[in-house]
């Protein structure tokens, strides 16, 4: 009852100022209109369409299509290529993410502690991030070449017979992971460096006074907790970019040999844009999108739970 009386009042109150406010709201809408239209056109509508297409047997080049319900998803579960591709993507991510994060953290702490050559080291490790991955993948193909490649030539000097890095099903995923790590360490390193410089020096001094003499104790008590938000962010970004691995696979292996390097985006690409099975590829895309959303959701949850020290 009281609410009903209150409502007209709240509407009545701003009335005298409403003319300039309305003008402000109007220009705000006008200024953001192009962005809103484009978001609908290029993000929301396509996402809705991809979910819808996932329930159809649409194929490019054929006139009609019909709804097939969950058939595409049922087929996905029994599709050996797709399962292999999910597994490979998971293995690739499980290798690249932890190694590139630990390497980046270690290198960042070494660079931070050193006062000469800082910018040189930062540049050297960051260079792969700024380089064209398709081009550098080609260089890696040469480095990995089983007979004329420098890596196997070096191994031969040490008396070790080098593997056929990209050419054998047993090693191809590890070789791609090496390229992935090489490419992503610099990015993580720069983020960790920014996080490290933001830690107040006094905290280390205080920890030392409190008896944290060993470097490891100072790391455990100050560096690691203070870097928490950075680490969480770097982890999410690294996992997501590993799940999105595509360039190196397309350039170097095309999913081979014998599907040993089929990864999620490459399988979607092949089904959708080479075989033109749009409906089936859409169902795969929905799974891909669901994975990204779950990862983001986990990050938000963890971020909320984290203690903030600053």
């Amino acid at each position, binding site marked *: 009852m009281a609410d009903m009386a209150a409502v007209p009042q709240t509407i009545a109150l701003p009335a005298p100022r409403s003319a300039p406010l309305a003008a402000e*709201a109007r*220009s*705000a*809408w006008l*200024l*953001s209109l*192009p*962005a*809103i239209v484009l*978001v609908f056109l*290029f*993000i929301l*509508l*396509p*996402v809705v*369409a*991809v979910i819808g*297409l996932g329930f159809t047997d649409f194929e*490019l080049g054929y006139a009609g299509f019909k709804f097939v319900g969950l058939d595409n998803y049922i087929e996905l579960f029994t599709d050996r290529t797709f399962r292999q591709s999910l597994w490979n993507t998971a293995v690739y991510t499980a290798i690249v993410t932890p190694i590139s994060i630990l390497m980046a953290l270690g*290198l960042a702490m070494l*660079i931070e502690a*050193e*006062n*000469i*050559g800082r910018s040189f*080291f930062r*540049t*050297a490790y*960051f*260079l792969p991030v*700024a*380089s*064209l*991955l*398709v*081009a*550098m993948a*080609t*260089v*890696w193909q*040469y*480095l990995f070449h089983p007979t*004329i*490649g*420098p890596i196997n030539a070096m191994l031969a*000097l040490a008396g070790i017979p080098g593997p056929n890095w990209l050419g054998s099903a047993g090693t191809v995923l590890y070789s791609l992971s090496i390229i992935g790590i090489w490419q992503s360490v610099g*990015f993580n390193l*720069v*983020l960790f460096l*920014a996080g490290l410089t933001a830690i107040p020096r006094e905290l280390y001094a205080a920890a030392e006074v409190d008896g944290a003499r060993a470097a490891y104790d100072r790391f455990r008590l100050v560096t690691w907790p203070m870097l928490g938000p950075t680490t969480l*962010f770097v982890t999410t970004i690294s996992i997501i970019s590993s799940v999105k691995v*595509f*360039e190196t696979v*397309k*350039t170097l292996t095309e999913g081979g040999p014998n599907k040993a390097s089929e990864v999620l985006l490459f399988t979607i*690409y092949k089904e*959708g844009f080479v075989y033109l099975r749009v409906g089936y590829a859409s169902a795969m*895309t929905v799974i891909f*999108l669901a994975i990204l959303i779950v990862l*983001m959701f986990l990050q938000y949850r963890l971020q909320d739970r984290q203690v903030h020290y600053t």
Partner: protein
Amino acid sequence: MNNQSISLARIIRLSVLSVGALAFLAPYIFMISTAGKAQSDIFTSSLSLIPQQWFYLQNFAKALSRVSMGRLLFNGIVVCGLILAIQVTIAIPCAYAMAKLKFRGAQAMIVLVMLGLLVPIHATALPLYVAFDRMSALNSFFALVAPFSISVFGIFLFLQFFRAMPDDLIHAARLDGMSEIGIIGRVIVPNAWPAITAFAIFSVVAHWNDLYWPLIVVSNQAYATPPLGLLYFRAAEAGDDYGALMAATLIITLPLVLAFLFAQKRFVEGITMTGLKG
């Protein structure tokens, strides 16, 4: 920070960093070295870095003749330039409205932006491809640029930046009788260069390197971007002509790497700024 003397810990630290840096730079060293080697040289001595015969000219000539490198670089510049110009023109007014003007849509739009951040081009590519195919718009600059005309990430970044700008600046401009467009052009943009530079670096690096979307919508050399062109070159150069391949790689990689080396402070700032707030 630490004492300047050369202690054992410091020697270990510097050697670890140097060996690591050497390993990370090795691909570049071999790329430059191999681009100057003759075929026979590549097959016999892969570990000597100095070419026995100086073959740079021949390899570069071959790289330039098979695929029109000038065309690729031109396409790359046009596509990245158009994308960046449109993204900034669309995102800045929208972010300004969301940050500084009162209207009822603002809250809903933040939700829209956060949702948009979750969706990469790989998720929207299929319907967009079908639509562009129906419009017969494949193989065009339009197809390469249009899906990236909106950058929700750009809106997000500028939104953060504009929120931190003092309201007094805008009020003063409004009292001077400036229109909202005038405020954006003469007050907001001149004060937002750090954010714009950071975003520009982020956007150009992302789209210069993108292979997925160009691979889907472009099927001839006329509109190929640098990564796609290199893929064509690899296909045309069957076998192991690594000399010419490395020369082509060198030409394609050089523009962005040079830009990075000249403006590395900005690059790193741009990446950390866009990174930490993403």
